[in-house]
């Protein structure tokens, strides 16, 4: 898809309560600015995120999806992030196989102390999606509404 300079991607992010959401909060407390196009859904653990949420987000209008959890070994619930890692690796590969650019389906480990990393992650995700452009071919509303 061609690069569109005016295109502002819309990113839905699923963050675990204990690490990544706290990391994003820290970015706020530290007044670290980053693109406003990321919208966060808080879940207790990245393990809660069903990979079909990714599909659903893309279908509901998102141009990209981010799942972020605790670093390996740091999960508040011991292993949730490991389950998430397996599921998303598979889903991401699969969506790529269908023609969904991997730039749209991202995963990160952001700890409660990594406010600065949160910013980097958002910038990288946002830039990546800008490069591949909007994903209108799957959006429910654009196809039958």
């Amino acid at each position, binding site marked *: *898809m061609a690069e569109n300079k005016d295109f502002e991607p819309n990113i839905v992010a699923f963050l675990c309560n204990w690490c990544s959401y706290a990391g994003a909060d820290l970015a706020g407390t530290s007044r670290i600015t980053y693109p406003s196009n990321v919208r966060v859904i808080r879940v207790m653990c990245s393990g809660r995120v069903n*990979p*079909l949420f990714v*599909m*659903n987000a893309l*279908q509901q209008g998102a141009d990209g999806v981010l799942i972020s959890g605790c670093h*390996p*070994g740091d999960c508040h619930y011991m*292993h949730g992030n*490991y*389950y998430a*890692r*397996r*599921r*998303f*690796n*598979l*889903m*991401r*590969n*699969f*969506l*790529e*196989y*269908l*023609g*969904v*650019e*991997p730039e749209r389906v*991202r*995963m*990160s*480990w952001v700890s409660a102390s990594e406010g600065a990393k949160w910013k980097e*992650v958002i910038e*990288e*995700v946002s830039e990546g999606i800008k490069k*591949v452009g909007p994903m209108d*071919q*799957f*959006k*429910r509303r654009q*196809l*039958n509404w």
Partner: protein
Amino acid sequence: MVDVNKLREKAREVISREDVRELIGYRPGTYGFRARPAFVMGPDDTGELIFTPACVNNLASYIVLEEKLPVKRGEEPDLRKVAVMVKGCDSRALVQQMEEKAYDRDRILVLGIPCRGVVDMAKVQAKYPDVLEMGEIALEGDKFVLSFNGTKEEVPREELVADKCLRCRYPTPLVYDELLDEEVERFADDDFADVAELEKRAADDKWAYWEEKFSRCIRCYSCRNVCPMCYCEDCVLDRLQPQWMRRSVDISENTAYHISRAYHLAGRCIQCGECQRVCPVDIPLMELNRKFYKDVEDLYDYEPGTNVENPPLLSTFKVEDKEDFIM
């Protein structure tokens, strides 16, 4: 080759047992070269049973498709065994079903059929579109022998054999109580070249490829219903609350359906190929399932339906699982 008389005799013996309620096998179809599932309830029903390369159906699906009507007051549920004939590929469905605790091993009696390949009925139909009266197919060496209308024709095996059989890893059933024929050693392997080929294409190209296929989907759900691994009491994709996928048939919902279906089979699909076989509009569903299958094997060294003791793929992890895709 399975001796049909031996098969019927064995079936008669099995269905006569007190602890066996039903035997699921194959019988000739109604036209052409077809065979179809047979449901044997008593010794007198065994006379029609066959096994030939036309026996394409995976009968393991019927174990989990069974409808459990409410048991009437004062009555007991019939918990006797169901006997089922399975080929190597089909047997993996039983293994996976048991791995998922769908039922206990003692609920089924498995008649295993070592198999060197079944036909792709679509290829047979295309080659012999006019055969109406019952034709027969046998595999002799590397040829299929087709008998119909009083004639016999030999066709090289690779011309009519189902694609899945060309990459079959488990020709002999992995679970059985009795084998109906000599064991067949592994004669093929799967390199997933088809998947690798498609992986290499550009993103737009891939999307266009799948869009064409998914746009044909009429959402008849035959792929789901025939699947031996799709046996939820109530499929999430049918549900209205929450509604993962709308009923509208359009490219967006169709794509969502196919992503969901394939993902739900990740680490579970046993490659019997039934979904693709039954699809009336030729959506290459196995290309979806096989992508997951390949990744699951490459990334997690896991092959579904090979060992009842295996933990479910997505309920386990290794600390060292690959994570180079994570930021």
